[in-house]
């Protein structure tokens, strides 16, 4: 089924109108020397057959685990109205709103989304979205480098390690120096950052809550950076922003983050959306689409893509970014989510996440051999040190239906025994209790096994 509407008779008629006798004549510009050497693809199938095929693939994924995995992507509840509204064809079969007369729906929604992001982050202006939280950091760096004309970026190691890796990939061919600053007890190491930020630093990248879940008020760090002419980029978790001090209140220059938690499903890694917001001073340096409110010829309120002179289709190689297609539908979902959950609802979601995470901490503290890292306050994610390799222990819990968190050894050297646990409003007291019990059991058996094993070795 190719969804072609025209019948063979219609095609014949159209070919005649084009003055050719066969469709092959229309492809005459393609030289025979480059004719396809192969095009062996399976035959097409009916909708029913294809659906069945994918249902079988989907069933081979264990999506029914109780999820305590986070690491920047969280299992929050999505109200049904988000799916119902976002699946309206007028939204999802449209494209970039180049013709404002036919796109007021998308344009107004983006304007409202921008406003929602500003209110959540306390910043002055937001763009229509970036690809994800990681590319948003990269774009923020480019913005800082261009604005300050400096060449060094300082990165707190509390910033999502995957995003840091992305940043280094993107800039491998550019002359940019990166300095990573280790954390202290999982929190921002203020003295080290202060020592590192010299007159050559374009920006310092921080994260709140950071990758270990630690919450902070970076106001003093921001002040130190500004004294040295460096900008501050802060990556934030939007759900936490309902409770925590937003970047706009502490003088952050560019706020970014992963917006998945706002109404977008986990979906094995995407599509998600990166959000980006800045202050009035820098708004014209911000990459990506931006929607503005204006008036039309008859004085009616209207929305348009604005500040397009920054963009690739006008500026070509001099553009602020190469981004074209962004994540408009994901941003629309985020906006719908925020509209539905609302002012009080978002506070409640954040409070629930936090309270449940604190409860999980209290349960884990009683398990022999487990240490909850609690030198610093956390939001809904925290690290625990296990008595053995966290990857191995996590594997055991997965077998019991629990995705217990992210083992940190892959991203932080020396943290092989650490597990990063996330708790959202979806997790119940019973699920958290079960997690704690299973963990205790697994650890007990683990030691039994190890003892047996080591005895055998000794023999």
């Amino acid at each position, binding site marked *: 089924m*190719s*969804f072609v*509407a025209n019948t063979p008779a219609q095609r014949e008629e*159209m070919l005649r109108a*084009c003055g050719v006798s066969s469709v092959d004549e229309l492809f005459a510009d393609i030289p025979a020397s480059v004719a396809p*050497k192969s*095009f062996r693809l399976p035959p097409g199938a009916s909708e029913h057959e294809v*659906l069945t095929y994918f249902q079988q693939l989907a069933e*081979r*994924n264990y*999506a029914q685990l109780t999820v305590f995995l986070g690491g920047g*992507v969280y299992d929050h509840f999505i*109200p049904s109205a988000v799916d119902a509204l976002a699946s309206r064809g007028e*939204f*999802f*079969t*449209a*494209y970039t*709103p180049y013709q404002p*007369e036919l*796109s*007021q*729906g*998308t344009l107004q929604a983006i304007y409202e989304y921008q406003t929602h992001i500003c209110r*959540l982050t306390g910043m002055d202006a*937001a763009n229509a979205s970036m690809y994800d*939280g990681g590319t948003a950091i990269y774009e923020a760096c480019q913005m800082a480098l261009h604005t300050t004309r400096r060449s060094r970026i300082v990165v707190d190691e509390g910033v999502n390690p*995957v*995003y840091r*890796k992305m940043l280094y990939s993107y800039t491998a*061919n*550019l002359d940019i120096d990166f300095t990573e600053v280790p954390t202290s007890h999982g929190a921002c190491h203020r003295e080290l950052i202060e020592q590192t930020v010299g007159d050559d630093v374009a920006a310092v990248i921080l994260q709140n809550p950071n990758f270990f879940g630690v*919450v902070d008020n970076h106001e003093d760090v921001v002040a130190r950076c500004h004294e040295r002419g460096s900008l501050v980029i802060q990556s934030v978790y939007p759900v936490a922003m309902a*409770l925590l*001090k937003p970047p706009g209140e502490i003088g952050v220059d560019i706020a970014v983050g992963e917006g998945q938690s706002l109404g977008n499903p986990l*979906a*094995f890694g*995407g*599509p998600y959306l990166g959000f980006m917001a800045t202050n009035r001073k820098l*708004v014209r340096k911000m990459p990506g689409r931006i929607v*503005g*409110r204006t*008036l039309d*010829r008859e004085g009616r309120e209207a929305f*348009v893509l604005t500040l*397009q002179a920054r963009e690739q289709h006008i500026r*070509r190689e001099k553009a602020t*970014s*190469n981004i074209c*297609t*962004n994540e408009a539908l*994901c941003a629309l979902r985020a906006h*719908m989510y925020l*509209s539905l959950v609302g*002012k009080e609802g978002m506070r409640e979601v954040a409070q629930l996440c*936090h309270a449940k995470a*604190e409860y999980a901490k209290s349960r884990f503290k009683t398990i022999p051999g487990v240490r909850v890292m609690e030198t610093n306050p956390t939001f809904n994610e925290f690290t625990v040190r296990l008595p053995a390799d966290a*990857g191995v222990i996590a594997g055991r819990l*997965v077998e019991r239906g629990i995705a217990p968190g*992210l083992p940190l050894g892959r991203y932080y050297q020396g943290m092989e025994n650490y597990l990063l646990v996330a708790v959202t409003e979806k997790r119940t007291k019973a699920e958290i209790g079960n997690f704690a019990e299973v963990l205790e059991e697994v650890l007990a058996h683990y030691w039994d096994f190890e003892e047996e094993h080591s005895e055998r070795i000794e023999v």
Partner: protein
Amino acid sequence: MSVVFERSVPGRRGVRLPGCDVPLAEAIPEKCLRERSAELCELSELDVVRHFTGLSRLNFGVDTGFYPLGSCTMKYNPRVSERIAGLAGFSQLHPFLPQLRSGGMLTQGALQLLYELEHVLCEITGMEAFTLQPLAGAHGELTGMMLIAAYHRDKGNRRQTVLIPDEAHGTNPSSAAITGYRTVPVPTDTTSGRLDLEALEALIDDETAAIMLTNPNTLGIFNSDIERVVELAHARDALVYYDGANLNAILGKFRPGDAGIDVMHVNVHKTCATPHGGGGPGAGPVGVRKHLVPFLPISRIQKRQDNSYMLDYDQPKSIGYVAPFYGNFSILVRAYAYIKLLGGEGLVEVSENAVLNANYVMQALKERYALPYDRTCMHECVLSASRQAEKGVHAIDIAKALIDRGYHPPTVYFPLIVKEAMMIEPTETESKETLDAFISAMLEIADEAEQNPDAFAQLPKNAPVCRPDEVKAARDMDVCYDI
């Protein structure tokens, strides 16, 4: 329509959250908390449903009507793809799962799907291997340029320039520039509408890292000299990048890999009918020839001997991470579902009908609208409003007149090398009746442009707004409801 924040009523609620079944916690110090609540909406669920339903009615999509936006391939998006992407086994899968020990075994369905899609894309394009990670077409270009840079770095040379034909997409020069390259434009031969080979030969040198090629180009013309272009590049160890945005024209007719193309991307939201979403999400898988495989982003999906699938992070020459996980997964699911529905013969039918539809429209309109390159086109044709412009009716005015007649306008003023350009891409899913009606509308508009050119400035009349003031928008910069 009023802005959503104007509908807000203090104290109104839209959703009920689960009660707190654990003790309330107050572990966060005061100095880390925000002073007052963020001023989000306070609406009922019905308020929200009416607001967004209202907004949707101010929009035009492929579902609404004919959308011949050139270069964007606005074809029908099959509904079954939405249903498949929404299956809980896909939509509720946490991306970190495969990183747990034995976790890969918990996501075998997803990994198999991605593996199969990579291989199907290889067969469609003739490339050796694909990465599905790039999150959009331009992101694919960026990934491609990073691969090219890594290839040259690996050989110990750091080349400085990338050659880009002036008929290329706007993202091409930008993608090359942000990777650290200086871009050098290559002119188009004004008689053939194709890349000027002599100019290319003169411009290519040992500083050239790559040429970025769009074929068929933005004039909708297939460049028959493609082998020669590749030969010229390879003779200087420059690589050839192929912008796959126009793949809808050549399925089963031409495979870039067979012509020696080194790197290419595919816009699945164009060719593979995944929805455009009002400006994304898309996905931009990147294919490479053999010598570039070691540089592909991590992770790579591998099939083990026991037919299970795994993520391989052990790629020492890899350019690293370009996306946090495995690409825009649920978009890739839709793309693969589409390919499965159509099969090989269906894909060939796509290109044949896309090209036929474009030529049919071009033939019917070329008497009344200037056709700068009068030759068989591929999936799109580029007309010019230059004749009408003499009377004061410009491409943008024709666009607005089409809006009043219920059509989305073509892409206008692009490509930049055609004055008053109108780039029409009907796609294969449109019927002859739709095309005939569109043609009639265009011919009527041509008549009106002659008879009553002054009337166009007031168009569109049947849209919610008419020609918003863009200058004011940029000057006053009202981009947030509060400021």
